[in-house]
């Protein structure tokens, strides 16, 4: 088992319990998704106040909701096209709110440089999701690039708990740019190959 696989395995124990509780209470997955974004807004508020450790703990709670909604939907047999759409849209709000919290914090501190780094990281984080969504309307699958949402969220938590948010923002920015580039190149090549096969 790999290092990251082992961490995932350990984390699944408490998550299984939470999923079972939500299934037993028959909580609708779309409600779980919405509660997740509200808690993420609270995390963004804490980031904006510079209370990184508090924000880290709130992010853990918020992302438990984010993680379990799909699993609960499966177990309750409530999987729907709207549920998938709702989840994706709400995830973008959650992402953006965390970045806005940091932009507020750095602007309060008069740090235009990090306002720009955070704003650019936010732009490319959103573009990471957009490029995949748009590509998958043209090709079957576009799952390339490293920096997806779970990686971003874990990095935010690491930055918050260890007070290394600047390093985390640089990593998110650089790897999000690379991921967007990967997806553009991959989609271009897939479409070109399809056209050549048809010709």
């Amino acid at each position: 088992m790999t290092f990251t696989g082992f961490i995932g395995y350990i984390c699944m124990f408490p998550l299984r319990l939470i999923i079972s509780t939500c299934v037993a209470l028959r909580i609708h997955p779309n409600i779980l998704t919405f509660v997740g974004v509200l808690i993420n807004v609270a995390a963004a508020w804490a980031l904006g106040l510079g209370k990184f450790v508090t924000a880290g703990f709130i992010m853990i709670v918020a992302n438990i909701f984010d993680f379990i909604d799909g699993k609960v939907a499966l177990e309750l047999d409530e999987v729907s096209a709207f549920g998938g759409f709702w989840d994706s849209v709400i995830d973008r709000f959650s992402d953006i709110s965390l970045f806005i919290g940091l932009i507020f914090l750095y602007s309060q501190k008069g740090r235009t440089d990090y306002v720009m780094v955070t704003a650019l990281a936010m732009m490319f984080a959103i573009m990471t999701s957009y490029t995949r969504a748009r590509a998958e309307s043209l090709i079957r699958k576009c799952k390339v690039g490293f920096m997806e949402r779970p990686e971003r969220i874990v990095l935010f938590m690491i930055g918050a708990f260890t007070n290394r948010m600047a390093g985390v923002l640089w990593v998110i920015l650089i790897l999000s740019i690379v991921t967007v580039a990967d997806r553009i190149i991959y989609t271009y090549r897939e479409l070109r190959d399809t056209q050549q096969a048809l010709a």
Partner: protein
Amino acid sequence: MKNPASLPARILWNAFFWTYERTTWQYDVMVLAILAFVWLTPPDWLNDPMSSGNGPIGWLIGQLR
């Protein structure tokens, strides 16, 4: 997708054009590299607005001088 032929070029290309799943050893290596950057880079080098100091690398450089 075609890779450049030599090993270092192939490693760089595969890191850039990422197609590995989570929980593979390649993913672990990438995660460890990111954690090393985040935790070992001195906050002063990045001009971190919320943290200061030289961090472990700065300490090590200080010891070596």
